């Protein structure tokens, strides 16, 4: 009797969602590259969360300029990765900088996704003139070389955290829109969409509840790749001097500030470069692992 009841009554939604997530995680374990990506991401997220506890020094404190990696500090402690030209500990700045990038990159990507998904859903579902107008806007934005667009926007509206999020949203939403639109054009002819239309569900309910969840596979892979690109973008903007205003630690900015001394003191630039590359690599490996799994079934 209990068996029958259990088969009839569906389990609570949250629990199934959790189980599904666990199952996808079990799948990613089959891909070596994907697992490496997950491990690297967990590594950096842990560092970002624990930055105040594990940083040996204050990230913005001037301690002892031009110290080599491994040099001891007169007042105790070691500069494991050395210090920069104004005497700030590089290891602590990398730890704190991971907070910056792991905050701005996901927020900016998420914001771009919200805009891109709404544009893509509208274009793919309504088609007709809405599709043509939205697609044309997307094409115009995408015809700019992407970094030219970022430089134009940031040079016009100024560089700040919010403006970087806005610029990333503006420049990335059209690409996301194209992907979503393509998926929706395929999914809108499915039977369950017709059923929902017959039930009299509103257009937006159909798009968000029926179509969007079924388009999630390719979107998750794309989101991982895009997160990597956004981290590159934030790094490049910092490197060009258009990033977050100093003195808060930001990996791209660290590279920009010490680049002119790279020939005499390579440790100042190399370690932030390794940090940012490893984080981008993590998301690209995860995306590759996810794609491999999604192609298998």
């Amino acid at each position, binding site marked *: 009797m209990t068996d029958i009841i259990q088969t009839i009554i569906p389990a609570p939604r949250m629990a199934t969602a959790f189980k599904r997530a666990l199952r996808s995680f079990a799948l990613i374990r089959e891909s070596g590259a994907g697992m490496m990506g997950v491990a690297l991401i967990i590594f950096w997220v842990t560092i970002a969360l624990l930055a105040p506890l594990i940083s040996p020094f204050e990230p913005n404190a001037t301690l002892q300029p031009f110290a080599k990696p491994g040099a001891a500090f007169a007042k105790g402690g070691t500069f494991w990765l050395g210090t920069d030209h104004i005497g700030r500990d590089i290891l602590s700045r990398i730890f704190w900088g991971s907070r910056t990038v792991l905050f701005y990159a996901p927020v900016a990507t998420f914001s771009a996704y919200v805009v891109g998904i709404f544009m893509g859903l509208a274009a793919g579902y309504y088609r007709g003139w809405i599709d043509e107008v939205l697609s044309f806007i997307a094409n115009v934005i995408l015809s700019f070389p992407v970094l030219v667009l970022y*430089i134009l926007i940031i040079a016009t509206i100024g560089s700040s955290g919010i403006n970087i999020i806005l610029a990333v949203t503006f420049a990335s939403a059209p690409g996301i829109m194209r992907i979503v639109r393509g998926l929706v054009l395929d999914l809108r002819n499915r039977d369950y969409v017709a059923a929902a239309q017959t039930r009299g569900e509103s257009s937006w309910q159909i798009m968000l509840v029926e179509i969007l969840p079924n388009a999630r596979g390719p979107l998750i892979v794309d989101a991982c790749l895009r997160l990597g690109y956004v981290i590159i973008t934030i790094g490049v903007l910092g490197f060009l001097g258009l990033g977050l205003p100093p003195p808060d630690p930001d990996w791209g900015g660290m590279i920009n500030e010490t680049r002119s001394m*790279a020939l005499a003191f390579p440790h100042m630039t190399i370690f932030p470069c390794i940090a940012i*590359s490893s984080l981008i690599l993590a998301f690209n490996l995860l995306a590759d692992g996810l794609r491999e799994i999604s192609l298998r079934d």
Partner: protein
Amino acid sequence: MIVFFLRRLAYMALTMAVVSALLFLLLELTPGNVATKVLGPYSSEEQRNLWLEAHGYSEPLYERYISWLGNFISGDFGQSLRFKVPVSEVLWPRLWNTAVLGFWTFAVMIPLALVLGVLAGMNEGSALDRTISVTCIGTTSVPEFASAVFFVAIFVFWLKLLPGTSGMANGFTFQELILPVMVLVVYDFGYVARMTRASMAEVMTQPYMRTAVLKGLPYRQVILKHALRNALITPFTVITLQINWLLSGVIVVEFFFAYKGFGALILEASLNQDIFLIEACSMVAVFVAVVSQTIADLSYTYLNPRIRFA
């Protein structure tokens, strides 16, 4: 085909028109701003008004736009504020330098990416394929500024083989071109190789490949005649579209190595609010990007008869 060609050209012209209007609005919507940028922040109200009067800024916005566009098409880009010379005098030599950089990047990147992609795609799932794929993910994960730092550390700081800047102060030298090209190639080849691999792997599973093998053709001939011709359609498009990416990449690389190219110019113009130079550079950049996109579209249709009338 001709109708398709004309339609693509018209679409290209429309895109350029919209882009030019956007740029004009972004940079010249308020004449007061333009005057401040041209005359500097310490100019008086009166000077600004005189300048605006003399340069036709009292006309309505759309008339200004049309005359601006007219000048633009006839090659008159205005005066650069930073370099104190006509924009075209700085722009074209810089663009040529970037073309040289781009040429060598493509000359190295295309053969490398195609060979690796074809090798990986031919042996899908093999150890060679996995090695190439993971290498490609690795190299595309290192942003240009980071790989530039690594290469400078290795080849300039440690091995002392190459110069660390590419300002070309004593005329053009190949030595100074090696590092910028290397950085761009390393960042770019992975993507093209992966696209080639995917295309090749798909072709390898096609029935005509099985037919060719089963009718006893030598494997070499099967690959060269049957597989490659079909598998290289997608990479060709991808490579053409890479020009758009390269325009972004050269900004970072030219800034890093102090190479006097178009990318460094556009950055310098933006950072110094050199308004007419920004307009000209952005228009040229978008023009190059749109033309390459159109070529990619047209050639894809031309090379692949299956979608010609779709």
